[in-house]
């Protein structure tokens, strides 16, 4: 039962047809739009690597049915910024060298962007709470917290 889904992806209107409306958003983003930012990490909404912003809220795209984004706005880390116009969080993550392998980084930046929208000047504790559901195995946590604080300090506006 094919279904057509329309949504705004990184600022552009997009339309896709899927066989299964319960197909998670992640596979549509990666396989139909060739996006590399959202990562497959667990498929269980346990690790946060697949995080994207849906209507401004960080969601786990590995568990988010494509049908439910119909009419909405999806932003991946590629949509937040790029090398020519980086998002303050991307600049801050590079400045703090806040990763090792970097596989979790997209999800960290997305979750941090959602935090800074609500809480522009978070404390360390607020950052740790907001990122507690994002796992990092290389253990760059201390740098990630510093990067989020740096982004906040450098005049973080809206994501």
């Amino acid at each position, binding site marked *: 039962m094919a279904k057509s889904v329309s949504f705004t992806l990184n600022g552009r209107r997009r339309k896709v047809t899927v*066989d*299964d409306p319960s*197909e*998670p958003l992640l*596979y549509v983003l*990666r*396989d139909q739009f*060739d*996006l*590399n*930012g*959202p*990562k*497959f*990490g*667990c*498929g*269980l909404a*346990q*690790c946060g*690597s697949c995080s994207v912003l849906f209507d401004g809220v960080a969601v786990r795209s590995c568990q988010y049915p494509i049908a439910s984004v119909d009419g909405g706005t999806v932003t*991946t*880390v*590629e949509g937040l*910024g*790029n*090398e020519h116009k*980086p998002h303050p969080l*991307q600049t801050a*993550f*590079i400045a703090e*060298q806040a*990763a*090792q*392998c*970097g*596989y*979790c*980084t*997209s999800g960290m*930046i997305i979750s941090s962007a959602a935090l800074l929208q609500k809480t522009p000047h978070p404390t360390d504790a607020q*950052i*740790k*709470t907001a*990122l*507690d*559901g*994002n*796992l*990092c*195995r*290389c*253990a*760059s*946590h*201390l*740098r*990630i*917290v510093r990067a989020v604080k740096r982004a906040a300090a450098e005049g973080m506006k809206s994501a």
Partner: protein
Amino acid sequence: MSTAIDRATFLKQSGGALLVGFSVGAPALAQTAATPQATVNPTLIGAGSNAVDAWLAIERTGLVTVYSGKVELGTGTETALLQLVADELSVPFKMVRMISGITGVTPDQGVTSGSQTIMTGSIPMRRAAATARMRLLELAAQRFQVASADLVTRDGYVMPRDGDRARAVGYGELIGGRKFDLTVNPQTPLMGPSAFRLVGRSLKRVDFPEKAYGTFKYVQNVRIPGMWHARVIRPNPVGATFVSLDRSSVGAIPTVKIVQKGNFVAVAAPKEWDAIRAARALKVTWSGGGLPAQSDLYDIIRKTPADVKVAGQAGDVDNALASAAKKVTASYYWPFQTHGSIGPSCGVAQVNPDGTISVWNGTQGVYQMRDAIAGLVNVSKESIKLNYVEASGCYGHNGADDSGTDAVLVAQAIGRPVRVQWSRADEHGWDPKGPAMVMDLAGAVGPDGTVTAWKFDGFTPTHSTRPSGQAGNLLDGQLTGAPPAKNGNVGGDRNAATTYAFANQRVSVHWQPTAVLRASALRGLGAPQNCFANESFMDELCHAANADPVAFRLAHLNDPRSKDVLNAVARLAQWQPGQARRGLAHGVIRARGVAFARYETTDAYVAMIADVDVIPATGALRVRDVYVAHDCGLIVNPDGLRNQIEGCVIQGTSRALKEQVTFDRNRVTSVDWRTYPILRFSEIPNVHVALIDRPQERPLGAGEPATITVAPAIANAVFAATGKRLREVPFTVARVKSALAEA
């Protein structure tokens, strides 16, 4: 000068102009070409080529490409290696880039592992660069009709010693686009610290911008036109034999193809979601197999017949123990642990029109993996083209290799390019595990507080069953009837011996031919286990001697660098003798513990102090702060080094506090982040690092050393807090509570 070219532009511009006969790096190839392959680099003759051209090439623009057999595993070594080579060649950092891990293109430097990349892997690259620089001086000397001693190299130019840039000639002009046709001179001196311009500086990592922008091409992002997606279905129970499968169980997904070969089963479909759904739906019948009860694990380890090797011997330990007034014995236990890569492994493969097979995966050794695949599918080594593409951090032998062979088997079966993405449960359940170990210690201290006897017995399997050219080491080899692999005993003895000067000691390693779960390399191999036992037991003897933990260790060390790290960490943490327990407030006891090790007994020095809070009423244990003093000789990139140390400490804390693979009689049951929890943001300690730079000393590896002292430092802190020993990892709430309840 072209130093104004930014790195991205540089990579783009130089992509088509390499000198060794291939067009662009593997990840980019996979994006664009249906039948990508690199042609053989004729200068690569076996392992460790001695041709300069095998290691580097200089283009007309002066851009330098370094060919590395060591790959970037996410630890920052690409940047650090480029710093070392750029300095050796006297070129600006922006003028160097690296191609790594492609069979037939890059040198065979073995496996990227064991904290060896900077320590040993950089040496041939630096020698090649030094040899090349000498030749560039000679070429310029001929051109200017002067002695090469009157010339210097700087920023990619050769110029007169007085630095007159008007008379400078660029490397590109001297050799660009041509080969050196030169053998690496092993006598060429390497640069000393006074000549370093890039080494020793915290340059930003070259791979970071793309990782932050989300555009970095991990192996999970390799896409080939016409590529299908596949998922694997593993035997259940472990070790079971395939009986049958029910094709109608996936009948609702018409595009799916089923692949079965021996006990290897996979499903493939043009769309990834269809492959995922089919893997969930496919009904497979298995027979036999199974695992022992987890509760019997340590008993099995003790009773497995073993080959005993003595790893350290001095004096007469048996006599010293027999005559000791104060004798201490203790046993320590470490469970199976998993790598826990955040991105499950992924491999991509295709059979090319000429019958060769191209593979992209995150293997740590492309040549060793190539040879194993050749054995698996019974083709010549040369017909396997293996391309390393960076994956999620691996911390050892995770599922990377096996996902690559999965892709090969499926690609062969369906005649299309295939991407195999492991599920979370595949990775947690089927990656080779860091081995469970048991360590028995006995020792004694004399009336003067000196250790008079030290007896260590460790029980371990080998910690390496890497592909090493043998199909039997591959999971798919084991599933399809490849002959069993023969592996030497590796890693279980790592840090079994200490560097303490004990007059009477015997360190015995009981090598076991089998392990309860498939076992291989996990960060540090046997060193975290052995160091946990040794440094905990050192603390037990220290307590028996009624001594201070820092002073006690210092008194048993002769080597000044060992003493330096201990003194440095004591200063950093403001260690006060006799103040390890810092008192009880609001039901929380705060205390600190010490640990020290020299990695592999020959490499980096680490001393650590962990500050913990224990709540006796609940068994809750929190590691608040960890202080580390670290000496790995010459520091190439201080911030990169700090990043590694922080990672070692936090991952080490996670392994100590939370991690253990669980299994039932059929299979591994810790198959996700709920059943195999790791440390989260709310639980991380602060990490305070004191780096000891020794520019005159050779660089030592830093990817593992600071991970091995974490568990004993924490356990020793808990003892200082409560008087109870934690002798079994992980230190879960239940285990702490039960230790505190002991009389």
